[in-house]
């Protein structure tokens, strides 16, 4: 029996086991929405802006390891979605975006709501497709899910012209897909793994540095086992937090621009570095020339060959699935009789403990004004360290990363690569849908939250009891900090004037709002908010305006050139 292209789209998504579609209807996707209406298996979440749709699908994917799905219309639907797509791309998140397109005969004629979607999204997707024949819909969607989830994951967009969704075809969903031009490597080269083991055995000052690849590759268990077996120090990137338990003594904190003193010093001074699912980006190692100034051997495990030797030359590259490579590494290490020199390791640890005693994250706990760090620490206590935390971008993001100790992967969800303000709230919606009973918190600031504030309406419609922790310092805090440090205190346009009354705003959307101005009220407010299991609570914390994020490696500087408190 022949069915319409629109019905084929829906049947494909059902076959893929999709639970939620985050979307917004419009002219070019009306037939697809019509088919959505006729079924009940797939649940659609109506966002209030297409950027929110992709962030929500992205948050969902990050929280539960499945492919997120967004559905948007042509033209402005797609252009609004681009920020979300680029966000997912930079953090390698598996998302499939289905976009409507004007009917095939109208393409290229500047039709109403026409944009070159494939062209606009090309630089920020893993791959994209324009479907020109109804018979190609099923295989294209199959390929899209396959590409999004395998290898180094990423967003894949499928653009479908309106007339194609009306045309009829037989439906059969391919069970498998193989592409001669796409064969991601999984197993690491055994010769390279042997070389890595030799370097590890010879290490006097070893360091393990892991990133988002460990989270995406489901390798937190393997990483933890490896680090504990070796007794080495371990640091995580912003994207890698939760890959190794933050409460473990072998964890030296996050590294990078706002990493801990001990993590950055250990990174700079180690003699053997094991980099796992991380990419030595500018926010992590600062100036590469300065990084080179110390001699060290580097082993780099990554699924993407192009991540290797991109910014930093490495000695032993191992291309493969992080989990499989770590399993092999653990097995081979267990089989060797050798051990790294214990005395050297002990001396290295005492050096690290000395750095750690610098207490680089200290702040004024007795302050009469609410310190943002204090709010995050209290949040950690109140939620027993067990919440899913999303964030926006800026100072609050860094404080969340520094002060909420993530012991598990997929609990910390933020836009690390693109740095997208507005990510936190819609991402939290996706997380809450993935884990309906869990505590989901969006740590944000009064500037970021206003970039996707409209999603408060979506939260109301779908009863998503997200807790919003707004660290309100009446500044775009990170911009203000840079202006203070590097632009002679000239706070150009970084003051958030004419702020809304967030309590009233939350109430206007049908939620609960709370304003907290005293440090002594912080804990009580958080406890009350989390006791309201069914309500979205917007907690507006009025925090210290002048607080800065420390340590800080200024742009262009090296890891050991931190500004400290």
């Amino acid at each position, binding site marked *: 029996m022949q069915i319409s292209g629109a019905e084929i789209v829906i049947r494909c998504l059902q076959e893929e086991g999709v639970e939620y579609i985050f979307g917004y209807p419009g002219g070019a996707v009306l037939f697809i929405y019509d088919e959505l209406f006729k079924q009940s298996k797939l649940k659609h979440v109506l966002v209030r802006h297409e950027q929110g749709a992709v962030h929500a699908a992205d948050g969902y994917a990050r929280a539960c390891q499945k492919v997120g799905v967004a559905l948007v219309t042509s033209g402005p639907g797609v252009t609004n979605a681009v920020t979300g797509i680029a966000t997912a791309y930079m953090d390698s998140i598996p998302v499939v975006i289905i976009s409507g397109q004007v009917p095939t005969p109208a393409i290229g004629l500047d039709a109403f709501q026409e944009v070159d979607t494939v062209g606009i999204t090309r630089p920020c997707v893993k791959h994209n497709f*324009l479907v020109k024949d109804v018979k190609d819909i099923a295989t294209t969607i199959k390929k899209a899910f396959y590409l999004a989830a395998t290898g180094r994951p990423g967003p894949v967009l499928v653009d479908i012209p309106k007339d194609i969704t009306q045309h009829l075809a037989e439906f059969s969903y391919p069970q498998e897909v193989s592409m*001669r*031009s796409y064969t991601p490597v999984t197993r690491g080269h055994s010769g390279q793994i042997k070389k890595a083991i030799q370097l590890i055995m010879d290490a006097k000052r070893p360091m393990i540095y892991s990133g988002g690849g460990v989270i995406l590759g489901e390798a937190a268990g393997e990483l933890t086992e490896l680090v504990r077996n070796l007794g080495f120090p371990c640091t995580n990137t912003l994207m890698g937090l939760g890959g190794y338990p933050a409460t473990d003594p072998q964890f030296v904190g996050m590294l990078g621009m706002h990493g801990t003193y001990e993590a950055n010093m250990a990174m700079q001074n180690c003699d053997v570095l094991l980099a796992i699912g991380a990419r030595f980006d500018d926010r992590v190692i600062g100036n590469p020339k300065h990084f080179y100034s110390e001699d060290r051997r580097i082993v780099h495990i990554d699924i993407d060959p*192009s991540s290797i030797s991109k910014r930093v*030359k490495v000695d032993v590259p191992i291309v493969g699935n992080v989990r499989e490579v770590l399993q092999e590494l653990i097995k081979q290490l267990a089989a060797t009789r050798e051990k790294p020199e214990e005395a050297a390791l002990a001396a290295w640890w005492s050096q690290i403990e000395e750095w750690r005693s610098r207490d680089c994250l200290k702040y004024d706990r007795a302050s009469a004004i609410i310190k943002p760090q204090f709010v995050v620490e209290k949040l950690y206590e109140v939620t027993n360290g067990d919440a899913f935390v999303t964030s926006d971008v800026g100072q609050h993001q860094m404080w969340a990363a520094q002060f909420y100790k993530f012991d598990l992967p997929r609990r910390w969800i933020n836009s690390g690569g693109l740095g997208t303000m507005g990510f936190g709230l819609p991402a939290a919606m996706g997380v809450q849908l993935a884990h309906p009973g869990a505590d989901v918190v969006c740590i944000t600031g009064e500037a970021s939250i206003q970039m996707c504030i409209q999603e408060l309406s979506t939260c109301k419609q779908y009863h998503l009891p997200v807790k919003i922790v707004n660290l309100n310092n009446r500044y775009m805090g990170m911009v203000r900090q840079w202006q203070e440090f590097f632009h002679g205190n000239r706070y150009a346009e970084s003051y958030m004037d004419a702020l809304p009354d967030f309590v009233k705003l939350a109430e206007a959307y049908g939620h609960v709002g709370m304003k907290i101005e005293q440090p002594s009220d912080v804990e009580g407010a958080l406890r009350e908010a989390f006791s309201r299991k069914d309500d979205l609570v917007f907690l507006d914390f009025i925090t210290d305006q002048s607080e800065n994020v420390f340590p800080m490696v200024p742009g262009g500087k090296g890891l050991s050139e931190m500004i400290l408190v």
Partner: protein
Amino acid sequence: MRHILSLLMENESGALSRVSGLFSARGYNIESLTVAPTEDPTLSRMTIVTSGSDDVIEQITKQLNKLIEIVKVVDLNDGEYIERELMLVKVRASGKEREEMKRMADIFRGRVIDVTDKAYTIELTGTGTKLNAFLEAIESDAILETVRTGASGIGRGERILKV
């Protein structure tokens, strides 16, 4: 250093713009780029002449391999190879210089493929350097128009690029 990269890619619309987009987005040089279908209609063969340090060329190769529609990439500079480029050049050819121009074309093993009272169109094949040498050998104000295809390359001997 100058490198010639040879690619096999799916013969699909949009594949070319993925490659050219990659070069512009990441700031890589393109000296020339040619593409045409192969004996297998599902595949296109592309030749890119680029330049950069060894690190940059390594990144270019890796990034190209990452594109979903690219089936294979080889750097021809990794072995012996042959390189050819086709040039069509229209030159002024009247009076005394008419005979001179014909002789010059012969020296460079070019062929005159179109003739008018005042001009010749010459077809010339060779490496880029040879084509440059021809243009330098004739008087520059005699050149009316030049069209070059950009280089195509192939490995020497038994070395082949195939799926």
